[in-house]
């Protein structure tokens, strides 16, 4: 078990195999390399909580939750980075945030996770 503190949810204890490693971190957070995906209130949204910083947690969702925004194309670099062998091992999460009255999804920086190896990376998608 891994026990750590969070500012939003108090102390948390999870099985080691629920830790998702981000070897190069997320952009702007290069030294936070371990995260846990937390369900919250039985909703399609989840929190991606940093294990190593109690204050850092992202609101994320499956892209299918957000209607009508087309497909997300990930580059070969992401596939290589994740050492992805089977398509079904790939999970994609989008970060959501509020901007005044609007909800903004970060389509430029989706999170790609190899759910078999529990390794993730923030992809960089340059949309035309």
């Amino acid at each position, binding site marked *: 078990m891994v026990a750590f503190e969070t500012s939003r949810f108090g102390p948390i204890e999870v099985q080691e195999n629920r830790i998702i490693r981000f070897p*190069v971190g997320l952009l702007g957070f290069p030294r936070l390399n371990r995260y846990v995906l937390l369900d919250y209130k039985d909703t399609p949204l989840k929190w991606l909580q940093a294990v190593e910083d109690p204050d*850092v947690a992202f609101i994320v969702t499956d892209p299918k939750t957000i209607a009508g925004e087309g497909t997300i194309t990930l580059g070969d670099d992401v596939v290589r980075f994740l050492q992805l062998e089977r398509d079904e091992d790939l999970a994609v999460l989008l970060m*959501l945030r509020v901007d005044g009255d609007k909800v903004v999804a970060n389509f430029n920086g989706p999170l790609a996770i190899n759910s078999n190896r529990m390794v993730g990376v923030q992809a960089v998608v340059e949309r035309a």
Partner: protein
Amino acid sequence: MLVLTRKSEEAFRIGDDITVTVLGIRGNQVQIGISAPPEVRIYRGEIYEKIKAENIVSSGLTKDDFSKILEKVK
């Protein structure tokens, strides 16, 4: 900042694993080739800064923000 001057088709190395080659120069545009191992992530500077700024805002949302977002996506 280290400043190097290179001609077209000349390269420089960053450590043992990364090679940056100037492929061509046209007007005010430079075409650059980068060879690096897969664990080295390469981004255009401006998109890196954009996503980094979004990440920083997104990292500090509250449970209230969560509820607001949930209302909108439901």
